[in-house]
């Protein structure tokens, strides 16, 4: 176990190194960070000073080493926009994103399992077709679009929920709902398909031959068996949400998380903040991966951790 965690951590280091290399190439070789980050009114002297400050006058290899060193110490420099360490901004906004993801993905997980299971009980039946249709629709709707329509209906027309921002529990409902729809559809369809697969397995026949009722078979036998694929797909979804959907949803609902911050950082040419965000998310993805593997092992004793 310990060995496994160490090995995965080493892999994580590789990932972070890969991300570093990519970010380095993108920011240093493909563009000019100085003109991006300094206000255009900056004088030539300021530009040179700034280039020196971030080490642009050194050879590329030395720059990269320094870049890596900064990452190890989580020193991403000061956010140009907020004038304080970029990492502070990231840690300040990260919990908001986590909260949104927890609410959105959490409700998707909780709802998808019963929905998918019920649909799987009678494939082709009314519930199944209804679930599938809603699922396909959910997969097809872009989240920014759902968000706009949700605001229009629930906030503006019905005035049930606030349109944007963070604060009360009510504030989280619409963004979480918007965020949850695609994963909910994906999870439900996955649970359904896996459940149908599982219900056709021989051990289910054994269970039925034992006289177990379907509800008990679902609960005790198949649910646990689909948990491993479910864990991996929900982990995947968590990662894609963390590294994608949140940007859109946070922008639409002015939710002060990392996604919105990233968009604002880009608009303000705040490369340091953007780098910090990319790294922290990459590190989170690595951690999520490790946790998922350990969880899978806990669920399925056949899995060898290596």
């Amino acid at each position, binding site marked *: 176990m310990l060995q496994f965690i160490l090995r995965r951590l080493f892999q994580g280091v590789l990932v972070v190194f890969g991300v570093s290399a990519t970010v380095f190439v993108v920011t240093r070789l493909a563009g000019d960070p100085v003109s991006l980050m300094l206000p255009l009114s900056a004088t030539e002297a300021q530009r040179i000073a700034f280039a020196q400050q971030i080490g642009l006058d050194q050879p590329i290899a030395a720059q990269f080493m320094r870049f890596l060193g900064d990452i190890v110490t989580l020193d991403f420099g000061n956010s140009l926009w907020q004038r304080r360490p970029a990492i502070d901004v990231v840690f300040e906004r990260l919990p908001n994103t986590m909260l949104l993801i927890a609410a959105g993905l959490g409700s998707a997980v909780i709802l998808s399992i019963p929905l998918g299971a019920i649909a799987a009980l009678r494939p082709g039946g009314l519930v199944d077709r209804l679930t599938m249709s809603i699922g396909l629709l959910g997969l097809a709707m872009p989240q920014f679009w759902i968000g706009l329509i949700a605001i229009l209906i629930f906030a503006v027309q019905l005035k049930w929920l606030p349109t944007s921002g963070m604060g009360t529990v009510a504030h989280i409902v619409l963004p979480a709902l918007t965020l949850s729809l695609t994963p909910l559809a994906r999870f439900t369809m996955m649970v359904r398909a896996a459940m149908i697969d599982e219900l056709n397995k*021989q*051990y289910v026949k054994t269970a039925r*031959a*034992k*006289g*177990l009722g379907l509800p008990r078979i679902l609960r*005790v036998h198949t649910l*646990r068996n689909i948990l491993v694929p479910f864990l991996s797909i929900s982990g995947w979804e968590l990662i894609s949400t963390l590294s994608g959907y949140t940007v859109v949803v946070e922008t639409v609902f002015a939710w002060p998380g990392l996604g919105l911050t990233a968009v604002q950082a880009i608009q303000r040419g705040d490369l340091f903040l953007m780098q910090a965000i990319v790294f922290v998310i990459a590190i989170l993805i690595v951690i999520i991966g490790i946790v998922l593997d350990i969880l899978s092992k806990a669920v399925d*004793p*056949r899995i060898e951790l290596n």
Partner: protein
Amino acid sequence: MNSFLLQINNLEVNFDTRAGTVQALRGVSLSIAPGETLAIVGESGSGKSVTAQAIMGLIDVPGRISGGDILWEGQPLTAAKVGARHILGKEVTMVFQNPMTSLNPLMTVGAQISEVIELHLGFSRQAARKRAVELLSLVGISGPERRLNQYPHELSGGMRQRVMIAMGIACEPKLLIADEPTTALDVTIQAQILELLAELRETIGLAIILITHDLGIVAGLCDRVAVMYAGQIVETGSVYDIFESPSHPYTQGLIRSTPQLDVKDERLVSISGTPPGLLDPPSGCAFLPRCPAGDGGCDKPQSLKAFGAGAVACCKAGIDAWKEAV
């Protein structure tokens, strides 16, 4: 009438496929008395497994029971599935062909055995575990306490089949259906499992339906044999009669194609051709195209009629059909 544990009357099972309706069982009738051991013998596809699944209520889409009934101690089993629950799994149980896939891979052996005890006998978890330990040693597994906490993938195939049997006899059933219980196992293990079944039959007074394509294992274990062909029973009789004087040309062929150690210089026959497709089965004798004794007269529906001590579905019952072929 109630002297039979299980009675199947005129059972029909159809499968809906894109190519059409496959008639997997075409009016199967059989019965089994308490303590009796019945073998159902036939080629794969003859409907023997479907019969077992029909009894256990395991026919799923695309299959469906389209006719006939199954009576357990005189009461219909198929009619009310919910009401059948304390019969299925308690009084009638089943052991499947492939022990590798028949156990839930993510539950411990102990949990899978206890489950059925808790469900049907209302035991507490502790009591059920205790009983599971007894069962495991009863089916000849050493170190049962340790095994309880193991997962199926940690056990060998023979061991798993023993676990399946332990589960099958957990509630002291009246009937155990064993669907090719030894097919997936090594020969040495096969013998052990059959021995175990024979032992259990004595100790518990269990009735057994043994489904197999292997006539070899029938002789030692069973009282009675039913031979299936193309979704129908073509011959039933005591194990002695079937082996000594098979009446249906198919049964004769089956026996003549099995090497027997005690008969010297015996020439084996092989039944040429394949069984008919059940999409559109012939209205007459299904064996006709392969039957060496068949003639124009066989082209009418055949039904199981008493013949000798048993019953045969053949208008030429009793003639030695393979004489020419040898």
